[in-house]
């Protein structure tokens, strides 16, 4: 060691700048007034595929696509004659040519440096093939997305037109079926015997039931149209109101104990949550109707991922776990209509609502041992 030199001298040393040039990923190359290459760093070697000792002294056009040579030369002359000493060059037209003839898109900035009566032009340039490909991909993805959004919108419009026409067109013939069956009984009471009357009543009953199914289906499709309006919802309070309503509507069922955990809140759409709770509670109420006394509970807990899970449990008729995945399909029923009435739309409604909130819903149960319905609302605790 011969002592430490002042930092100023380091900055003056050609070695220092050669090393800096060597570590740059970008191509740094300089040409003289005649556009012959006089500097070609390691980055340039990598990008263009030429070694510095092969390319030094060659015309700059060697590194440009053939079509770009003449305009580029004009640009260089204009730049040489102009006031500016540095200029960024971007845009689609900037392209370089590798040793193997392959072209690549580039971004560059050029500068004019006048030293000791000579003028040197230096370009710092990078290959933007990868970036351009990503841009291209993104543009394509975006276009795809827009296409799909348009398709979805069309599908939605068609669906609305469909439900509109269902609500109009399917009900009218039902009204005729039900109406004339009833008029037959009224007008021909003397000539129609009891068996025929029974058949006519069945026709009437079936048309009424079909009208209800159509209404339920339309209600289900209408339910989740439109945007969520999330607010802080008190599920405990909703559940207590719902139970009060059910008790009022069915006062004969006194021996049902309902436990509702206090303070269960969630950020959710309150109208939809009420509908979900009504359906779950109705369900529990209905499937415990064969019990002498029944117990229903609505509680919450935390799953392994720290997500809040709400559970509505009953000790009623239950179901066979083999059919657990069928519970949530529209019009799927695991019990005969004679056994427990209903259209099979309630749990489908619950599932729609939960999915709309980004949550999951699933069920556990066993025949004769009750059922538990669990759901999450897709929000992390504390959010």
């Amino acid at each position: 060691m011969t002592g430490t030199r002042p930092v100023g001298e380091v900055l003056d040393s050609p070695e220092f700048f050669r090393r800096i040039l060597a570590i740059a990923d970008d191509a740094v190359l300089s040409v003289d007034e005649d556009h012959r290459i006089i500097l070609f760093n390691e980055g340039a070697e990598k990008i263009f595929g030429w070694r510095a000792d092969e390319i030094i002294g060659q015309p700059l056009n060697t590194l440009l696509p053939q079509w770009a040579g003449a305009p580029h030369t004009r640009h260089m002359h204009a730049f040489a004659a102009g006031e500016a000493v540095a200029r960024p060059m971007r845009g689609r037209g900037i392209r370089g040519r590798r040793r193997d003839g392959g072209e690549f898109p580039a971004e560059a900035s050029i500068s004019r440096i006048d030293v000791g009566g000579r003028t040197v032009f230096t370009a710092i340039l990078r290959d933007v093939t990868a970036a351009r490909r990503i841009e291209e991909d993104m543009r394509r993805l975006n276009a795809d997305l827009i296409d799909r959004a348009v398709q979805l919108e069309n599908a939605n419009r068609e669906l609305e037109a469909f439900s509109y026409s269902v609500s109009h067109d399917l009900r009218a013939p039902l009204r005729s079926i039900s109406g004339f069956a009833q008029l037959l009984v009224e007008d021909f009471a003397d000539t129609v015997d009891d068996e025929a009357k029974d058949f006519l009543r069945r026709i009437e009953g079936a048309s009424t039931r079909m009208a209800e199914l159509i209404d339920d289906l339309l209600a289900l499709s209408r339910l989740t149209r439109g945007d969520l309006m999330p607010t802080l919802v008190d599920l405990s309070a909703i559940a207590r109101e719902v139970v009060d309503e059910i008790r009022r509507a069915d006062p004969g069922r006194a021996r049902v104990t309902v436990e509702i955990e206090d303070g269960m809140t969630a950020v959710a759409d309150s109208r939809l949550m009420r509908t979900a709770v009504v359906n779950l509670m109705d369900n529990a109420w209905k499937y415990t109707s064969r019990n002498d006394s029944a117990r229903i509970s609505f509680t919450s807990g935390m799953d392994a991922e720290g997500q809040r899970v709400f559970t509505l449990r009953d000790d009623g008729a239950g179901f066979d776990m083999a059919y657990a995945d069928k519970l949530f399909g529209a019009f799927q029923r695991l019990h005969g209509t004679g056994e427990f009435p209903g259209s099979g739309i309630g749990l489908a409604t619950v599932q729609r609502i939960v999915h709309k909130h980004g949550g999951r819903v699933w069920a556990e149960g066993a025949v004769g041992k009750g059922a538990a319905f669990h759901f999450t609302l897709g929000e992390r605790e504390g959010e």
Partner: protein
Amino acid sequence: MKPILLVEDNPDDELLTLRALKKNHIHNPVVVARDGPEALDVLFGADRSGGIVPAMVLLDLKLPKLSGIEVLREIRRSADTRMTPVVILTSSREEQDLMAGYELGANSYIRKPVDFAQFSEAVRQLGLYWLVLNEPPPESRPT
């Protein structure tokens, strides 16, 4: 007795409605129009020189040629009929129909029940309310 104008394109519904009116002892004469233009002809005359001002219009929405909504718009536009009670009697309860109906000044909007007993009851109540209980608007022109 002023007539009831029934605007209805479905012959079954027409028969059932007439039946329900008769059953409930509503004896006003009933004029039936089976599409939108026919309804306008009844109300304003084929040459628009003047037609019938009914005691009440029972208006279906889904009609050939001109929809019930368009018929309602014409009813409210005319000085002769702008105060005439109009009851929309239809299959739909789509929000867009409800909105359009009320915005154009329908007096009631009834969705036809599928069950005939309920339908008949709805017609009974409509007749009782609009033809008996409700005081009609003063005559806007000499009859």
